[in-house]
Structure formats: C-alpha cells, structure tokens
C-alpha cells in the first residue's frame, strides 16, 4: 500500500509536471516540426538561472519569470540562426554542445557570484516571493492519503500552479497544432522542400517553433527549480535523454502524450525503486545502486515499448512512429 502511495505521490509531484512542461516544449520541436533539439536541458537550465538570479537581484517575480523565458528565447535564436538553414543533424549537434556549455558556464568559478558555481543556488535564496503568493496554509496539509506542505518548496501550492501551467501549455499545443500555422510545421516535418515549393518561409516557421518549444522548456525549468534547487548538474545530458524518452513513451505529436509520458516515466521509476528496495536484500543490491538499477530497468522496459508500440501510448501509428 505504501508503495502505491509513493507511486501516486510521484505521479502528481511538481517535478513530474515540470518534466511534462519541458516535454511539451520538445513536442513543439520534434512532434510538430521534426526539429532534433538534443539540448532541451539547456533551455530548462537557462530558465532556472534567469529566474533565480533575477529574484536574488531583488526584482519582482513576474520580471524574474520573463527574464528566464527571454533567456531561453535568445538561446533559441542564437542556436537556430546558423543551423536552421542546414540539414537537421546540425541543429542536433549544436544543441547538444550548447546545452553542455550552459551547464559548464553555470559551474564555472568566474560567475560564482551569480550562479554559485558547481554548488548552485540554494532554494531558500529565491523561492520566497513565489511561496508568499500561496493561498494555502503555511503548514503541512493532508489531503486524502497525500501529505505535503501547503506553501513551501514541493507544496500543494506549487503542485496546483505547475499542473495548471501544464494544462495551459497542453491547450496551447492543441490550439496551435490544429491551426493552419501548425499545418505548415507538420508539412516541414514531412518535407521542407515541398513546403518551400508551396510558398512558405520555412526558416521563419522553424525559428518560431524552436523559440516556443524552448520557452516552454524554460518554464519547465523554473517550475522544477521552485520545487528543488538550481543545480547545473541536475540538468545535464541525462535530463534531455529522459525528456525524449518520456515524449516518445507518451506519444509525440499528441496533446497529452508528453504529460502521460512524464507521469508514466517517473511513476514507474518510483515503483521499480520501491519494489527493489522492498524485495531485493541489501547485500545483493546496495542502496546506492538502487537508482542506477531502476533506471536501467525502466530503460529496458521503454525500449521494449518502443519496439512493440513505436507510436507511444497515445500516438497515432500512421502519423508518428519510430
């Protein structure tokens, strides 16, 4: 029973919602436009830094959010400008490298005054303005089997806000994907030259998609930071890899695929971890090996899923399968 609650708690956790957001951003890139962004973690990290540093400067929370999102938009323009005219793999290579550069820059001592270098920025340094907006009590609140703080860190307040943003962004995806604008992006995903031959400015559309998806990624980063802390190494290449996994798991090019994918991914990780620690004796599997072991197991399961249901859980096989 405890295991079940653990799993459910993970399913509704703000971090799960934050990953769903970043995956919705990736869905704009890949599901809709076919762009291979291999550095979504970099967009998240920029959102986190932009937000946390702005708050530390004493700026209002809405300015801090805008700074985080603008940082991601500028990053998208810088990455897209030289690569979107070239073949798709150039964007992939450049985004991998650029995301790593953001992380290294975050770790570097030269900016330690702003970023805290490799130890990052403590949550208590930037969470207060958000937590002060909370209508929930400043204490532990029990709702059904769930027990969370009302306002602090991974709270009911943050849970409510992040899932509301997830719904909003899923709605945004639905509206845009089902508009003539989204149709042009799908055409680009299928064959850029065909779309050019029909008189559309492909470069401009790809840039718009890259910016929108990156900004939503930054939003995911900000919400993630509000439940955790700003840590450059928490947003490395594995994060981007997980985002891709959960997008493909849920179903690319669908409205709720990234959301379902995030819930399934993190819940099954918790499930495997709980089961392993409950049933595998610690002399066979040390507690420190639990996390890597669970990731491997989840990875294998996902591989099987992709083999047997390549379109993901919600996807349409005719539209997007791997």
């Amino acid at each position, binding site marked *: 029973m405890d295991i079940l609650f653990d799993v459910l708690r993970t399913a509704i956790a703000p971090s799960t919602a934050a990953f769903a957001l970043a995956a919705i951003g990736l869905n704009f890139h890949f599901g809709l436009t076919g762009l291979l962004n291999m550095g979504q973690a970099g967009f998240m990290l920029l959102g986190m830094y932009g937000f946390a540093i702005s708050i530390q400067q004493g700026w209002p929370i809405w300015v801090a959010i805008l700074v985080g999102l603008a940082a991601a938009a500028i990053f998208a323009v810088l990455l897209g400008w030289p690569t979107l005219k070239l073949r798709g793999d150039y964007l992939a290579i450049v985004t991998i490298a650029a995301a790593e550069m953001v992380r290294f820059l975050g770790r570097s001592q030269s900016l330690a005054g702003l970023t805290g270098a490799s130890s990052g920025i403590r949550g208590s340094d930037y969470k207060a303005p958000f937590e002060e907006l909370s209508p929930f009590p400043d204490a532990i609140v029990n709702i059904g089997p769930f027990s969370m703080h009302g306002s602090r860190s991974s709270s009911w307040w943050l849970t409510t806000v992040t899932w509301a943003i997830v719904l909003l962004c899923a709605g945004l995806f639905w*509206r*845009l994907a089902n*508009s*003539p*604008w*989204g*149709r*042009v992006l*799908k*055409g680009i*995903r*299928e*064959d850029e*030259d*065909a*779309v*050019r*031959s*029909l*008189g*559309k*400015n*492909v470069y401009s559309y790809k840039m*718009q998609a890259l910016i929108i998806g990156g900004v939503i990624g930054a939003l995911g980063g900000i919400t993630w930071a509000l439940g955790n802390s700003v840590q450059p190494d928490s947003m490395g290449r594995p994060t981007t890899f997980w985002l891709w996994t959960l997008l493909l798991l849920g179903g690319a090019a669908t409205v709720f695929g990234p959301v379902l994918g995030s819930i399934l991914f993190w819940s099954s990780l918790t499930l495997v971890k709980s089961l392993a620690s409950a049933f595998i004796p610690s002399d066979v599997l040390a507690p420190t090996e639990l996390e890597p072991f669970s990731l491997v197991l989840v990875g294998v399961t996902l591989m099987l899923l992709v083999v047997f249901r390549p379109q993901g859980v919600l996807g349409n096989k*005719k*539209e*997007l399968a791997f």
Partner: protein
Amino acid sequence: MADTAFVSVPHEPGAAKPDPILIADGVTRRFGGLTAVKVDHFEVQRNTITALIGPNGAGKSTFFNLLTGFDQAQEGEGQFNGKPLRGMPPAKVARAGMVRTFQLTKALSRMTVIENMRLGAQEQPGENLLRAFAPPLWKAREREITEQAHDLLHRFKLYEKRDDYAGSLSGGQRKLLEMARALMCKPTMVMLDEPMAGVNPALTESLLDHIVELKEDGMTVLFVEHDMHMVRRISDWVVVMAEGKIIAEGPAGTVMANPAVQDAYLGAHHDTDLSDLSLEDDE
C-alpha cells in the same frame, strides 16, 4: 497540337518567343568539374505547354531547380513575369506564381490528403502565429480553401481518399496529389518534373487531360518527360537538352526528326526503342 503563338518562332535553340513568361539567360551551374547546366538563352511562351526533354543526366532537373530558386546558378539571369529571379528564394518564386513539382514525389506522407491540399493554399491568415490563436480570423478562409481543395480532388479522382494519409496512396496517386496541391497555389505557371513517371497507364490518360486543362485555364506549363508519345500528344513546343545545353527547339515532329536530337538520345541510351523517335509525325 501546334499553338498559333509559335508560327513565327524559328526552330532553333534559344529562339525568342512573342510573349515570354519565363526567360533564362546565360545560366551556368557547375558541380565541381561537371557543368550540369549551360543554357545560353531560353524562353517559354505564355499560356502554352512546353516540354523539356533530353536523356538522363542532361541537366533538366538541375535547370528546374535553378529556375525555381532551389539551387543557385554560378552565372546567369532569369526573369519570370517581368521579375528578376536572381537570388529569389524558392518560397518567393512560388508566391510570384511559378509553382513546381519534384521528380521524386514529395507527398507529405504523415498528413492526410486534404491537409496536403490545404497546405498549398495562399493567403491563409491562420498561418501567422498570432492569428492562429483566433479561429474567427481564419475559419472563413479555411472553408474557402477546403471547397477549392474538394473541387480539385474531384477533378484528380482523389476525393474519396481525402481523409487517408498521403503515405497510403499509390505512387501514381501521389503524383496526382502533388500536382493538385501545386494548383492550390493558383499559379500562373506550373513546372512539372516527370509528372508521368511511375504513373500507371490508366492514370496517365487523365493526367495528360489535366495538363491540357491547365492551359485552357490560362496557365503556362513547362514539363519534363521521357515518353515521346506523351510529349507529342500534349506539347505545343519542345525543348531538347543534352549535356547541360539546349540543342534543339521546335514542334514535336520537327525536333524528333533532328539528327542532333537522335544522336543525343542514341548516344545516351542505346536501348531506346527507335519507334519512340519515329521520324514521321503521326498527328
């Protein structure tokens, strides 16, 4: 089939036309050491059907790419409907009214037939990001577009397939879809790169009819084709390319009787059935 516009046009490469819609001058495209296209002068008469023929590797597709902005010539100038083509990106060429299809069909496989068609339409305000949020701004235009698409799909016998994914169509149906989609742009000139390749004979007939209809609707057609029977049946004027150059021009019968043309074909593929190049004009 000869069009009266050509009565005074000499049967020689680079001949000037009375009312050219498309002009290319001194166009050269080299790939490394290979000169793929070297066209001294080329004109297409407005509202006619012109065939561009020549053996494989003659440079026809490359020439198409240069004219439509998909490739850039090292030298030369082009003009479409009075507008200079130099440096014009492909999307702009299309918006100017010159729309092309591709030798290797580019149906958008994971989109439905009707969505393929709608994508071809111009002036849909909903293709703008901000307006996309407000359906009242684009729904009316979407209805017009859909109606236009249905008409074309009926004409191209694809109406029943409108909700199928384009990837599920046969090769010939994809060619038809690509051509119908190009017409959604309401072009003034249509450039078709091997529209008949891979299309089964039953469909070829209707495809030929469609091309003739385009002319009747006031459009200009330039098409690349291998099959001489097809060329002979629908084209008003034939331009022959070999090794990047235009080697002959004229009505189908005259051009096919030209020894230089026969040499080019025989030199290129020895297995060509001579009857395809038959000297007598059978029409």
